[in-house]
């Protein structure tokens, strides 16, 4: 039959190439329960080790470079001011939400998240047309993938309630001329002064910080979302916003350039995205010379079906079904924050159990470096 060098075979029949690799006997001595190895040398559920560098960009309020093998992304955070007078129908502030219904009720995170989303203070965008991949050439409008990634990042930011609203509010009062540092201070210590009642009543929100999150892909080799989300997390965790106050004389917000007076963003939890692909060889064209039949039974999902983690570019084209989970184990037990499954019909509840188990391992791996 036709014998082809591996790269040619991979280009002509990507799914057959993947199957041939997964079912390839590793040694001549026939061992039972031999693990499947992918063309990239990884085991079926082996992920690439993420590498993170933070705050290497001087003009950004926070930044990170994240690498997953040959996928490399840069995230840069920049804060800008949204003046309250420019908001037509301002949603309730974090303080109002806290005050509703008694002295110290717990902050209703749902309402807060709603306010944050209404204001649109988190603005993530993704740029793939940097030459990062031959399919996303420069000078073109954002591709479908770039748009989907940005939307998913925004959704994930909103659903995980990663950034609390009160950190982005800049309070001030128009009536008081005296600029008492204590009163003008917009710190995370709002809660303590909440009880003072009268004084804070005069204050209102003068502006918000809008957080621009720009993600540039330097190189794309699969699993764009996990890398992009990792970069968002790493950059936000290292973001500092300058101390800002309302200046009565100039009728504007001024910032203090002093690094010591700036404050870091505090994030709620540590959500991590873990993506999977399901390779269903039974739905693919078959190769006659493949010895798949017998070995395919040992696939990790049984009968020629594999659950693969952290897909690279060629595996993404071969896998028709994908699962993406956002999990957070920061509060002890693993919490599932978001789960998305696209295409195919292989994944059932048992597969989802396995997915969560692997996601927990992966969360620990990210936690070590984030």
């Amino acid at each position, binding site marked *: 039959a036709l014998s082809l060098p591996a790269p040619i075979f991979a280009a002509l029949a990507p799914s057959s190439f993947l199957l041939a690799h997964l079912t390839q006997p590793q040694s001549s001595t026939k061992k039972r329960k031999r693990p499947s190895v992918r063309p990239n040398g990884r085991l079926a559920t082996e992920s690439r080790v993420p590498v993170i560098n933070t*705050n290497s*960009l*001087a*003009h*950004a309020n926070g930044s990170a470079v994240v690498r997953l093998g*040959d996928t*490399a992304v*840069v995230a*840069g*955070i*920049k*804060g*800008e*001011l*949204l*003046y309250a007078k*420019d*908001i*037509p129908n301002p949603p309730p502030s974090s303080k109002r939400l806290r005050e509703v219904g008694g002295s110290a009720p717990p902050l209703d995170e749902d309402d807060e998240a709603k306010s944050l989303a209404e*204001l*649109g*203070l988190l*603005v*993530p*965008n993704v*740029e793939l047309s*940097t*030459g*990062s991949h*031959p399919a996303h*050439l*420069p*000078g073109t*409008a*954002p591709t479908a993938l*770039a*748009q989907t990634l*940005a*939307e998913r990042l925004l959704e994930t930011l909103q659903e995980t309630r990663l950034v609390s609203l009160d950190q982005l509010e800049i309070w001030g009062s128009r009536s008081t001329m005296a600029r008492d540092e204590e009163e003008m201070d917009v710190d995370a210590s709002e809660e303590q002064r909440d009880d003072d009642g009268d004084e804070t009543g005069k204050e209102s929100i003068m502006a918000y910080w*809008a957080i*621009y999150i*720009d993600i*540039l892909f*330097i*190189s*794309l*080799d699969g699993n764009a979302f996990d890398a992009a989300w990792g970069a968002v997390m790493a950059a936000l965790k290292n973001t500092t916003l*300058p101390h*800002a106050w309302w200046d009565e004389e*100039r009728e*504007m*917000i*001024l*910032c*203090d*350039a*002093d*690094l010591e007076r*700036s404050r870091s963003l505090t994030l709620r939890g540590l959500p991590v995205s873990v993506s999977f692909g399901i390779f269903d060889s039974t739905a693919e064209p078959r190769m006659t010379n493949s010895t798949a039949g017998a070995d395919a039974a040992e696939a990790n999902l049984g009968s020629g079906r594999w659950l693969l983690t952290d897909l690279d*570019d060629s595996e993404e084209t071969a896998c028709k079904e994908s699962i993406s989970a956002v999990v957070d184990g920061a509060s002890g037990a693993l919490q599932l924050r978001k789960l998305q499954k696209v295409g195919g019909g292989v994944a059932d509840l048992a597969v989802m159990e396995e997915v969560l188990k692997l996601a927990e391992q992966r969360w620990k791996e990210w936690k070590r470096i984030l």
Partner: protein
Amino acid sequence: MSDRRRINPPPGGTSAPVYASSTASPLPPTRTRRPDELRKIFLKTHITPSATGSAYLELPPSPSPTPSLSHSQSPSLKLTATAHLAPLPRSAPFTPNLLVSVHVKFAPFASPIRRGYIRDAGERELSVRVENALRGVIIAERWPKMGLDLSIVVLEGEEEGPAAIQVGEKDAGGAARKTEAWWATMTMLAGCVNVAAAAVVDAGIDCVDAVAGGVAAMVPANTAGGKGGVEVVLDPVPREHGDIIAAAVVAYLPTRDEITELWVRGDPRAAGGEKGLEDLVDAAASAAVGARTVILEAAREEVQGRVEATEGV
């Protein structure tokens, strides 16, 4: 302006933060290099494995006497470039030559004030100039019906950060910053030419020579004796010189002694006399020769790395 294909800012629009006057105004750094000494260029090829060729270039930040205020470090030029050799789209007419197109893109976080995604005049100008610099170098007839897409991303520009925006002296500060950015564009162009050239060399596209970019500036002489004359410095950092009289960028082919792109700002003849322009351009060309050495060294390292990797197997 809203763009349906991106996540848009809040409808009310946002403005860049304005900083109050800081107590200690940072002293501008001064040049510690000799006039003919270049900054050390960090260059690494092959950063995007799926591209035909790629490179990353970084210039070291100039040492700041006072630590930068709102940010912990001073900015340095950081550029990436990728070269993709690909068939032309169906819509393009038949051409017997390789079509080279260059896109320079600033990352939104590359400058003190955030930039949007819409292509602006600065990006266009740099793109055209880099394209000119490369056009005469690439042997286009070797690749009929093909396109070479060069994409350059500016991850960080050199102009100083928010400490320069100060209330009160807002106008003066703004103007100074603008001049600084104005001159810094020239260093950026030279950097773009170098990173693009490194990506083309990495891609193995046929060229008549390895092109390189260089900058030189004419500044008031910094001698203690105070002749009041001018001197020409290679690879200037605008912040280090209070006043720049003129500057030139060249894209230069050393083995042919040809200049494929020349950009002069200011009038070198007014202060430097008859030979002012010639001196300035010669100096820029010698800066380019220095950069070319770095480009070839990066290519050599890549080859050696690969040879060692194959021998190791």
